[in-house]
């Protein structure tokens, strides 16, 4: 008699009955417990860390590479500045932080300061569960409101019940930003006899010309799925009004706004055409993002559409590459692009040292911090930045573009913040669109289904 078959007997049935009984008992208690809405803490008596004996600040972040090293330096400088503070840094990668942060911050000993991604899937859920502290009074005390554009604060703002995004209290703060745009290889652009395009049509002409002369027009690898969002977003940004996109992503008008619009279909059609005409790296579906960046840095391809974060890979002082924002359809229209704030720092509601935590957040966004972070490839969004940036470098191009789009109020938030499941729906749909598996109309319908399901669940 082997062991496996013993589950077939009456003993199995009895066990099943027992399970059902246990389930009924278990069903009596609701998971998640109760949530008390967090009230705004009073303004601090003074800025800086209060001198009330030793304080240990636990920080959870996802910074790595050159930026991660800057964080280490800033942390020890903060400890030197306030001798009663000890910083315990818990460093995790992006995926790990996403998974573990919710568990840690809802536990009995939450970290004091956390780097929380904006949008419904992450910060939205933490606010809804009452796990983050509203920072409004700290923002006033430290002058954060005057330091960065309102759009940067909006993407970290929520009503205290977590039901409205982009408005209400401030739950996270950063003065560093991100911007998506087009990198170009200066040598290749002039070799091909092309110039920096000033309209969307001119950009498409550049793509066609590059393709005709045997060059890869856009360096791209979409095996990691996220890069596809950025290729679509910069096209969409030129075709749909900024306010519509922003309202759609914040969900401010509930289900009255739809992803299924002629502008979005047009953007999808354009992206599919580019894919069909071979404007992207051949075999991009199986190519990795890191490989594409490395190949572009080695001199392959004319353009690459991605974010400021690859500046560090190219070298901040690199003069062989330039950067421009995807040009508007009509010449002279204000620039629009996807991007905005970087990862904001937030204070957990369970922190016993909120004042010290606020002082830390201010320190990580100070002029001194900004100078160090810029050299590591980050983009400052605050007033009075960019003194240490060398003109003519790729970094200068990126910072100028970010400033221009920010001043024109043309920053569109990342689309994958729109619903908790939007990242998965959108990336899968874009892979199918670019692989000619679905039509542009099917693409917007698929994505709209996710959007309307979420808006219905909020109502």
């Amino acid at each position, binding site marked *: 008699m082997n062991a496996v078959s013993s589950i*077939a007997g009456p003993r199995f049935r009895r066990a099943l009955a027992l399970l059902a009984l*246990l389930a009924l008992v278990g069903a009596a208690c*609701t998971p998640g417990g109760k949530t008390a809405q967090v009230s705004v803490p009073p303004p601090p008596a003074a800025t800086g860390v209060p001198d009330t004996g030793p304080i240990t600040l636990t920080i959870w972040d996802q910074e790595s590479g050159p930026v991660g090293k800057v964080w280490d330096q800033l942390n020890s400088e903060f400890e030197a500045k306030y001798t009663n503070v000890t910083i315990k840094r818990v460093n995790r990668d992006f995926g790990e932080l996403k998974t573990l942060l*919710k568990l840690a911050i809802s536990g009995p000993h939450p970290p004091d300061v956390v780097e929380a991604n904006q949008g419904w*899937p992450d910060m939205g*859920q933490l606010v809804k569960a009452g796990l983050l502290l509203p920072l409004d009074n700290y923002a006033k005390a430290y002058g954060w409101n005057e330091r960065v554009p309102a759009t940067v604060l909006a993407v970290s703002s929520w009503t205290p019940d977590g039901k409205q995004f982009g408005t209400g209290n401030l739950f996270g703060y950063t003065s560093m930003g991100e911007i998506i745009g087009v990198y170009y290889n200066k040598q290749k652009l002039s070799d091909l006899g092309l110039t920096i395009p000033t309209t969307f049509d001119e950009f498409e002409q550049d793509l066609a010309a590059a393709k005709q002369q045997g060059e890869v027009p856009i360096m791209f690898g979409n095996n990691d799925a996220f890069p596809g969002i950025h290729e679509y977003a910069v096209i969409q940004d030129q075709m749909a009004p900024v306010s519509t996109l922003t309202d759609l992503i914040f969900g401010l008008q509930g289900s009255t706004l739809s992803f299924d619009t002629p502008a979005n279909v047009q953007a999808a059609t354009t992206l599919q055409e580019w894919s069909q005409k071979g404007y992207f790296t051949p075999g991009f*579906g199986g*190519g990795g993002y890191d490989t594409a960046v490395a190949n572009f840095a080695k001199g392959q391809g004319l353009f690459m559409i991605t974010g400021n974060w690859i500046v560090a890979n190219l070298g901040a002082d690199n003069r062989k590459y330039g950067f421009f924002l995807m040009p508007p359809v009509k010449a002279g229209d204000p620039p629009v692009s996807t991007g905005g704030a970087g990862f904001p720092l937030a204070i957990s509601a369970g922190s016993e040292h909120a004042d010290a935590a606020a002082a830390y957040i201010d320190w990580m966004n100070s002029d001194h911090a900004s100078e160090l972070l810029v050299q590591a490839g980050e983009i400052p969004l605050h007033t009075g930045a960019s003194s240490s940036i060398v003109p003519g470098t790729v970094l200068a191009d990126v910072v100028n573009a970010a400033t221009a789009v920010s001043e024109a109020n043309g920053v569109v938030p990342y689309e994958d913040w729109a619903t*908790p499941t939007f990242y998965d729906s959108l990336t*899968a749909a874009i892979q199918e669109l670019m692989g000619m598996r679905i039509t542009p109309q099917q693409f917007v319908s698929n994505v709209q289904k996710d959007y309307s399901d979420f808006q219905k669940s909020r109502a």
Partner: protein
Amino acid sequence: MSELPAVVASRAVADGGRRRRERLPGEPRRIGYLYIAPAFLLFAAFNLVPLVQGINVSLYNWDGISPATWVGFANYGEFFTSPDIRSGYLHVLILMIFYSFLPIIIGLFLAAVMSRIRIRGLTFFRMLLFLPLVITDVVTAVAWIWIYDATGPLSTTLKAVGLGHFVPSAGWLGDFNTALPAVGVFGMWGQFGFCLILFLAGVMKIPATLYEAARVDGANAVREFFAVTLPGLRYELQVVLVLTVIGTLGTFDEIYVLTAGGPGTSTTVPAYLVWRRAFQTGQVGSAAALGIILMLIIFAVTYGINRLMERGAET
């Protein structure tokens, strides 16, 4: 635990000195529960309690941190309506060909061949075939990602022998049509060694006299396989079938490492959906319901296989 040796039971009566209530030999004694208590407590703490919690969570709409709302069996209803879940189970059925069916066929064939001939250094070859199973999937998957790459050895070899038009331009894992079979072949490479080892052990157990008798009766290799080897491997076949089918239903690491469910949704599987909903998209209730359904399906399939095999044995 109900079958205490008769000797132990009767000695307990004799040693007592005073006369106790007569216990029939083999009748279960209450003390048996004490013996299983430590194991049961561990099992309860780490398996039963989480299971009950999981069933509880599956009845709520819960994001993992804020208060949950009761939705009854709505999360289970999704199983019948969601196209994502349906395609996930379809993919796992296709994977079953690679993870269960083909490894068993290959394993049986090799075991039959190896049972007829003596091979020098058999232990060495056995170890070689078993090796993929010893190294974790996550490590070997990295090598396979390279093999499947658009510029990897598989593509370049095919191009070199003039079969370039079969090579998908996005690489084998990037193409909508080849991604799932590519994952399947990777799994098959790991599985068939396991099948072969079990079958080889089983073949050694079959008395040589049976083979001699078959040969005396004039059976050829094929007859010998169906008349002697296959019936002799019935239990091994049952174990292999149950384990590989359960393994396929629970497929996760291969997908996580090789494709992350892509391109599009062409390689999503149920266990991957459970993970994504629980830890990525904050749909913990729905993830729990999917997990419970997966458990019930595994139970049912295991039960079905065992019944089928036992009925086969009776005839």
